[in-house]
């Protein structure tokens, strides 16, 4: 028996098709990026809604036979399959058996397949008693016809929808943070309800025509403590009324207590929830800027309001500055950009991320750079260096572009002194305002202009000034007009924006990629 099971597990363990199928099921059920998951989810949601609709319609109308069959068999079978799949992918029995078998062989001890099977099945059982698994199971039950009461369980199918709403999960998360407080209150509530229920039963069972059993007493206590007060059962003795007064007061106190606990839990977590939303939105956008530090430079940077930076978020560890940024209408997160947890929230694998480390401290910026690099090599990094002595350290930390405000300003002042007339021109080129844009055209492999000579492109007629080609590491200034443009060249061109855009449209290339 042992051997048979191990042999079977080994077969599954080595079957590529089995693994592929299991992985597919797993992705279908859990992977948000899976393309089929959306359709799968929509199908389940559709089945739930139709099923509940049929239940409601059934109350006053005759349901056609086919619809009934659809509800009883089709929907239930789909749900049953889904339940089995979830149970199946919860853990890998075959892998567990093989691992255990190998370990046993290695240690030379006896291998007992049932021990590991027990462990694996216990894990599955543990999954089966989680709330969502129970809901799934109850949603299948209405298929059993002889028990009419099971029809009500169709309503459990609605709970299946909860799996597809994130906000409910967040709500549950928030509530669980206050588990202790809520449980204490619940215990207190039970105490009040039971003691007053029992008290009213003892005191009034023979005097009050509405109280016959202990259940009546407890029912009255619950209705009263919840401040609902149907009035179908009311105390008739003075002592009973005194008890009423007590539990009404404690009921009000209890309700306001619970409310305040839940509200405070939410306000504590509200920030986190909002932040989570910001990050999710950014990750969805696939291309965004993360700006670390909200100081003078960041303010200046954002104030320019240029089109190409729609998606950005500011991260600062100073709450005052975050509040200031939010007041100015920017999206900001109060967090530490040099911590792994903060930066790893961004989906570096699937998104095009640029991180700007712009804090006023070099130490901080380097730390941010190293932190970002430890997460992904794909992220583009721009670092602000305040002390030129640290440039090498920034390079070492993997910063792609280095910005030294002092040197940038000094260069501008220097140009303004030495070539005052030209300063205007260079300033215009650098700021990209007005008629003088310098732009780069990246020539891709399949780009329309690859393989053509410069003179064929008629830069002059397009009102563009062709300056040169960046080819690999070398810049070729003003090459002869017979020069052939090669794939991966970067052409440096100057001109008005409309000229550049027009040139781009006729050559179907990407300027400014």
């Amino acid at each position: 028996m042992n051997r048979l099971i191990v042999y079977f597990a080994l077969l599954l363990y080595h079957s590529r098709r089995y693994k592929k199928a299991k992985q597919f099921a797993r992705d279908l059920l859990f992977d948000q990026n899976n393309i089929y998951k959306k359709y799968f989810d929509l199908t389940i949601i559709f089945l739930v809604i139709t099923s509940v609709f049929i239940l409601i319609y059934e109350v006053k109308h005759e349901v056609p036979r086919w619809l009934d069959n659809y509800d009883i068999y089709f929907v239930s079978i789909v749900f049953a399959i889904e339940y089995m799949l979830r149970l199946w992918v919860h853990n890998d029995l075959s892998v567990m058996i093989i691992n255990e078998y190998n370990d046993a062989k290695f240690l030379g001890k006896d291998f007992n397949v049932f021990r590991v099977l027990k462990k694996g099945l216990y894990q599955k059982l543990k999954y089966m008693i989680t709330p969502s698994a129970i809901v799934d199971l109850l949603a299948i039950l209405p298929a059993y016809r002889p028990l009419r009461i099971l029809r009500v369980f169709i309503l459990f199918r609605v709970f299946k929808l909860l799996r597809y709403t994130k906000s409910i999960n967040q709500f549950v998360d928030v509530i669980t943070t206050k588990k202790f407080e809520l449980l204490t209150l619940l215990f207190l509530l039970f105490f009040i309800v039971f003691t007053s229920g029992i008290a009213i039963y003892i005191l009034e069972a023979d005097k009050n025509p509405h109280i016959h059993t202990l259940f009546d007493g407890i029912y009255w206590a619950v209705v009263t403590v919840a401040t609902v007060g149907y009035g179908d059962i009311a105390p008739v003795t003075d002592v009973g009324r005194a008890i009423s007064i007590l539990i009404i007061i404690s009921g009000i106190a209890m309700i306001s207590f619970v409310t305040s606990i839940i509200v405070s839990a939410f306000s504590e977590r509200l920030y986190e929830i909002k932040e989570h939303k910001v990050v999710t939105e950014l990750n969805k956008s696939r291309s965004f800027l993360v700006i670390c530090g909200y100081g003078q430079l960041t303010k200046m940077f954002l104030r320019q309001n240029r089109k190409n930076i729609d998606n950005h978020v500011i991260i600062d560890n100073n709450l005052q500055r975050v509040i200031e940024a939010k007041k100015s209408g920017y999206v900001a997160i109060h967090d530490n950009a040099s911590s792994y947890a903060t930066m790893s929230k961004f989906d570096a694998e699937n998104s095009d991320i640029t991180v700007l480390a712009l804090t006023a401290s070099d130490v901080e910026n380097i730390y941010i750079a190293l932190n970002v690099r430890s997460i992904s090599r794909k992220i583009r990094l721009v670092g602000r260096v305040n002390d030129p002595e640290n440039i090498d350290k920034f390079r070492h930390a993997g910063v792609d572009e280095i910005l030294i405000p002092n040197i940038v300003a000094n260069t501008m002042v220097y140009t303004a002194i030495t070539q005052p007339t030209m300063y205007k021109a260079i300033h215009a080129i650098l700021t990209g305002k007005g008629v003088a844009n310098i732009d780069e055209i990246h020539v891709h492999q399949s780009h329309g202009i690859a393989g053509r000579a410069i003179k064929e492109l008629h830069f002059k007629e397009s009102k563009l000034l062709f300056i040169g080609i960046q080819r690999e590491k070398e810049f070729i200034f003003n090459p002869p007009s017979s020069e052939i443009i090669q794939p991966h060249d970067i052409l440096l061109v100057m001109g008005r924006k409309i000229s550049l855009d027009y040139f781009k449209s006729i050559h179907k290339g990407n300027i400014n990629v």
Partner: protein
Amino acid sequence: MSRKKIAIFGYGNHGKYLAQGLHRDGFDITIIESDKTFYKDAKSDGFEDVHLLDVTRDSELTGKIDFGEYAQLVCVMDDEHLNVFLTLSLSSLYKDSYILAISDSVNVTKKLKMAGASKVIDLYDVSANKIYNILDKPVATRLLEEFVVNRKGITFKEMLIPEGSFLDQMMVDDVNFSKYGVLFIGMIDEEKAHSFIFVTAGLEHKLDAGDTIVCLGEKEHLNAFARLIKKSKDDISIEAKI
């Protein structure tokens, strides 16, 4: 280039860099400091025309040196309060002078402009611009920066078209700048209210004596071209024949 006299106020963060660069490029500079440490720094760095003045007092600013003679007054004191005060003093004492000042925040930029600075360069403004350029066009930004900073290799140069130059009265389109290894970027047209016109603006321009043209190219080519434009059409045709 004529030897312009330039006064640099402040030998701190920015002053040091500017003074050394300008000195290397052969400018005639005077350094003024109010701080003893910076004053000593300047002295020990080999500058001779260094003065220790209390820039908050008008008598000091008018006494020893006549700043009216200077082509440019550059205010780059490390202390921003002092810098604004100095700009204000200089602009009231020397009304016609060209005053250039550096600022490290928007508020200071406003104050410096109100104080009468002819041009204010905002540290964060230019840096913020650069971030955009790095994000937008990284290669072009790097190359352009090299063109601006380079003392050798490819760089910009402005040249005045002298009287009798072969360029005088020629249309921009008719001059083959590539032949001389330079690119014509733009010009300052004296006819059109001293405005800078880029070649890519798409207008037909006639070059006149007295216009300043800006070219991009190898340093040697630029220098050769600058010498060439001093010559007349006849000179060139004679040289060509020889």
